[in-house]
C-alpha cells in the first residue's frame, strides 16, 4: 500500500492518496470546517465501453448499457438502496458519463454508515427481469425528455455524430429507444462482472470526515480475481470530421447551433494541459471580450446564449462554440476568420494573461465545497493525474506560443463540423 499527501501551496488544502493492489484508489480531503461530506465512487465504465476484449474474447453491448446498469445498481436483494441512504439522511444519486459511472452521496450525519453503503451499492448486482423491463420504461422517458426533446442535447449529440465517424462517443450516453430495447439482465450482469471490479474504481471523499472512516468503509472492496482488466476496443477514427454540416428541425424558438473542432486526443497531465489551453484559446478568440464576440453581438448574429467549451477525454478531443443564431454559417465563417487572424498575427498577450488569471481564480473558487473537491479528485484520478490541484499548477507555464500552437492544431476549418437545429416550419 502506498500513501501520499499532496498539498496545494495556495489554499493549504491537502489530498491523501492511497493505492493498494486489487483495491480501489482512495483520495481523501479532510475538511473539518465544513458541515457535510461528499463521497463519489467512480467506476471506469462509461458509455464508450460498449466493445471490449477480455481473456482474448470480444464482447459487445448495446449503446446505453452502462447507463442502464447504473440505474439498476440501486436494486438489491434487500430492496432499494436509495431507501437505506434516505434512512441515514444521506442524499444519494449516480450518473453515467462517456468514460465513467459515478455513484455518490452527500450527508451531514451518519457518515461511517453511509460510507459503508457505497461499496455495497456497487457490489450487489440484482437484476430481475420484470424490474429491468420497468426500468426500460423509465429510461425511455429519460431519453425522450433529454435526448429527443431537449434542443440543447440534440444539437450537442448531433454535433458528435457529425464530428465522429465510428468512435462510440458519438452515441448518446443513455442510448436510444431501440438500443435499450436489446438490454437484458444477462448483459447487465456481464458488464458488471467485467468492469465493476474494485481495481477499476476510485473512491473520492471530501468534507467533514477522517481518513480512518474512509479506510474502514473501503476495507471490504478488494478484488477476488487476478485477471487483467478488460481492454476497451475503440474503432479507428479518422482525423477529420465525418460531415462539415449536419442539421435537423424541431420545435424551437430560434435556430440553435454548435460549431465543433475535432483534433487528436492526448492522455494524462497533457490532457489537462491541452484542455486548459483549449478553454483559454476559445475565450481568447470568442469570449465576451473578444472582437469576434462584440462584432457578432452588435450585428445580431449571436445573443447572450453564446458559449464555448472543451469536450475532452482520453480518446476524444473537441473544442466547441455554441449558441443561437439566425445565420449560423456566418458565425462559423467569422470564427474561422478570427482563428486564421490569430495564426497570422499572433494573439493578444495581455488578454491571454488576464484569461490565465481568470482561470486561476475559477479553479480556486470552484474547489471550495466538499462536492466540488470530491469531483476534482475524481476527475484527476479518471485522467490518471495525481494532484487534484494540477489546474492551478499548470497555468503559469502556459505561454502565448502554446496558445498559437493550439489554434493552429485544433481550430482549423477542415477539423470542423457545424450542427444546426432549425425551427420547424409553422403549420
Amino acid at each position, binding site marked *: 500500500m502506498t500513501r501520499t499527501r499532496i498539498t496545494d501551496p*495556495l*489554499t493549504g488544502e491537502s489530498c491523501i492518496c492511497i493505492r493498494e493492489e486489487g483495491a480501489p484508489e482512495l483520495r481523501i480531503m479532510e475538511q473539518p*470546517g465544513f*458541515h*457535510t461530506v461528499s463521497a463519489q465512487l467512480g467506476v471506469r465504465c462509461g458509455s464508450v465501453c460498449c466493445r471490449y476484449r477480455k481473456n482474448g474474447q470480444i464482447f459487445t453491448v448495446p449503446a446505453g448499457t452502462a447507463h442502464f446498469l447504473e440505474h439498476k445498481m440501486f436494486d438489491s436483494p434487500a430492496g*432499494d*438502496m*436509495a*431507501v437505506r441512504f*434516505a*434512512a441515514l*439522511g444521506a*442524499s*444519494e444519486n449516480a450518473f453515467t458519463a462517456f468514460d465513467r459511472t459515478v455513484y455518490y452521496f*452527500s450527508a*451531514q*450525519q451518519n457518515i461511517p454508515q453511509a460510507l459503508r453503503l457505497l461499496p455495497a451499492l456497487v457490489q450487489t448486482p440484482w437484476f430481475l427481469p420484470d424490474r429491468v423491463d420497468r*426500468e426500460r420504461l*423509465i429510461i*425511455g*422517458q*429519460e431519453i*425522450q*425528455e433529454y435526448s*429527443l*426533446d*431537449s*434542443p440543447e442535447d440534440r444539437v450537442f449529440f448531433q454535433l458528435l455524430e457529425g464530428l465522429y465517424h465510428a468512435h462510440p462517443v458519438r452515441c448518446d450516453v443513455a442510448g436510444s429507444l431501440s438500443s435499450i430495447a436489446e438490454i437484458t439482465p444477462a448483459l447487465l450482469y456481464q458488464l458488471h462482472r467485467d468492469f465493476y471490479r474494485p481495481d477499476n474504481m476510485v473512491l473520492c471523499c471530501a468534507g467533514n470526515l477522517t481518513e480512518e472512516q474512509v479506510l474502514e468503509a473501503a476495507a471490504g472492496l478488494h478484488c477476488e480475481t487476478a485477471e487483467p482488466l478488460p481492454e476497451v476496443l475503440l474503432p479507428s477514427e479518422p482525423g477529420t470530421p465525418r460531415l462539415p454540416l449536419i442539421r435537423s428541425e*424541431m*420545435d*424551437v*424558438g*430560434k435556430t440553435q447551433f454548435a460549431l465543433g473542432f475535432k483534433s487528436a486526443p492526448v492522455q494524462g497531465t497533457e490532457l489537462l494541459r491541452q484542455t486548459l489551453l483549449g478553454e483559454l484559446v476559445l475565450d481568447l478568440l470568442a469570449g*465576451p*471580450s*473578444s472582437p469576434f*464576440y*462584440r462584432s457578432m*453581438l*452588435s450585428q*445580431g448574429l449571436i*445573443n*447572450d*446564449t453564446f458559449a464555448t467549451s472543451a469536450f475532452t477525454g482520453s480518446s476524444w478531443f473537441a473544442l466547441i462554440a455554441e449558441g*443561437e443564431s439566425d445565420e449560423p454559417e456566418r458565425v462559423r465563417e467569422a470564427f474561422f476568420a478570427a482563428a486564421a487572424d490569430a495564426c497570422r498575427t499572433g494573439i493578444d498577450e495581455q*488578454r491571454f494573461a*488576464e484569461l490565465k*488569471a*481568470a*482561470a*486561476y*481564480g*475559477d479553479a*480556486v*473558487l470552484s*474547489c*471550495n*465545497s*466538499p462536492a466540488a473537491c470530491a469531483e476534482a479528485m475524481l476527475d484527476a484520478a479518471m485522467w490518471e493525474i495525481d494532484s487534484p490541484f494540477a489546474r492551478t499548477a499548470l497555468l503559469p507555464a502556459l505561454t502565448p506560443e502554446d496558445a498559437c500552437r493550439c489554434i493552429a492544431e485544433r481550430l482549423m476549418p477542415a477539423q470542423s463540423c457545424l450542427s444546426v437545429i432549425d425551427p*420547424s416550419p409553422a403549420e
Partner: protein
Amino acid sequence: MQICQPVFPGSGIRCTEVIDPKLHGCLLSLHFAVPRDARTAPMHALLTDLLTAASADYPEIGALSARLDALYAADLSASLILCGDSTDLHFTASWLDDALTPDRLPITDAVLELVLGCLLRPHARNGSFDPALFAVCRQNLIDEIDGILGNKREYALQLAAETAFAGEPAAIPPQGDRDLAETVTPQECFALWQDILQTAPIEIIAVLPRENPQITAALRAGFAGIARTPRPVTWLAPSPCRAEPVLAEDAIAVSQSKLVLVYKYRNIPRRTAELLTKMLSGTGTSLLFVNVREREGLCYDCSATHSALKCAVVIECGVQPGREQAAADAICAQIEALQTGDFPDSLCEEAKLSTEYAAALALDSASGIENRVAAAYCCGETPSLTVADSAVRALTRADLTEAACRLRLDTVLMLHGTETEANP
C-alpha cells in the same frame, strides 16, 4: 461562522454580513424588492442585462468582462426571482479572497468599485441607457422569451402559472410579455431604474471569509447620495383556490407530454408545507419517486416544489403520450396518501433528516449561505445559521396529515406530445 448586521444609515436598506473562514472567496448581493406588473416585467428583465454588461466606466461591450477576468474571475451577475406577487431584482458579485490571489493583491476594492459603478453609474446619458447597448440587451431578452419554447418543462410550468394564478401578478411570465418587450424604450428603463434606486427596499448580504469593514463603508458611501423614500413590498400573496380544479390542455411538437398539477392551501405553517413537499419528492423514499416513477414506471422525474409566498405546491413531470391521465391519477393518489395518513413513519423521519441535510449543505457554500439569509428575510424571519430546526423536528404524523388535508387541487395542465415516431 458568525452573522452580524452593521448599521446602515439609509432608509429602507438593511445590511447583513456572514463571516465564514472556510470560504475561498467573497460574495456580495443586493436585493431590490419591486412590485410586479405586466408593464415593468420586461424592463426588470432588461435591467439585469443593462446593468451588468457595461457601465459608464466600462462602456464598451466586453470591457467589463475583461476587467472581471483580470480580477481573477470576479463575477457580476443579475437575476429576477419571482417572490409571490413581487419581484426580487437581485445583483450578485463574487470574487477571490485577496489572500488567495497569487501576489495577495487587494482586489476587493476594485470589485466594489465595479459593482457600485454598474449600479450607480450605468452606461447612460441624458436620462437614457445607451441606445446601442439597449438594442443588444433587448434582442437578448426577446430571444430568451422565444427560447422558452425549447425548454418544454419550463414552458409547461409557465403555462401552469398563467392558469393557476390568472389575474394575479404571479401569472406574468418571468421575462414579461414579448410585445411589451419590443416597445420598451431606453428612457423608460432608465427612469424605472432611478425609481427603483430611490424607492425599493434593499437587502444587502455579504458572505466573507473574514470581517472587512471597507465593504460596508463603500456601500454606505455609494448609497449616501440617493434620496430614498422606500415603498414597502408585500411578499406573502396567497392565491385563492378554485372551488373545482381547472384542466388546461394543449399540444406540443415533441415526443414527451408534460404534466403539471398545482395544489393550493391556506393555514399551513411554512415548515409543515416544506416537510410535506419533501415527503412527496426529494429523497429516494419520497412518495412520487417510489410510486409514480419506480412502481408505475410512468416517468423519469416527478418533482414537487413549494411556493411559501403563493401558498402552493407545484408537481410536474414528463410522461409518455397517452399516459397523462394515469400519471395525474397516480400523483393525486400520493396527495391522498398524505391526507389519509397512509404512509410509513419512516417517510416522515427521512424527510426531516433530508431537511437537516439541506440546511447543512446550504452552510457549506457562500451562495448557499446567501440564499438562506435572503429566503429568511423574504419569509419575514430572522436568519439562522444552525442545521437543526426544532420546529421541523417537533412535527408529528398528525400535524402532517391534518395539514395535507388543506391541500386543494387547483389546476391541472397537460401538454400532449405529438411527435409519435419516437414513442416506443
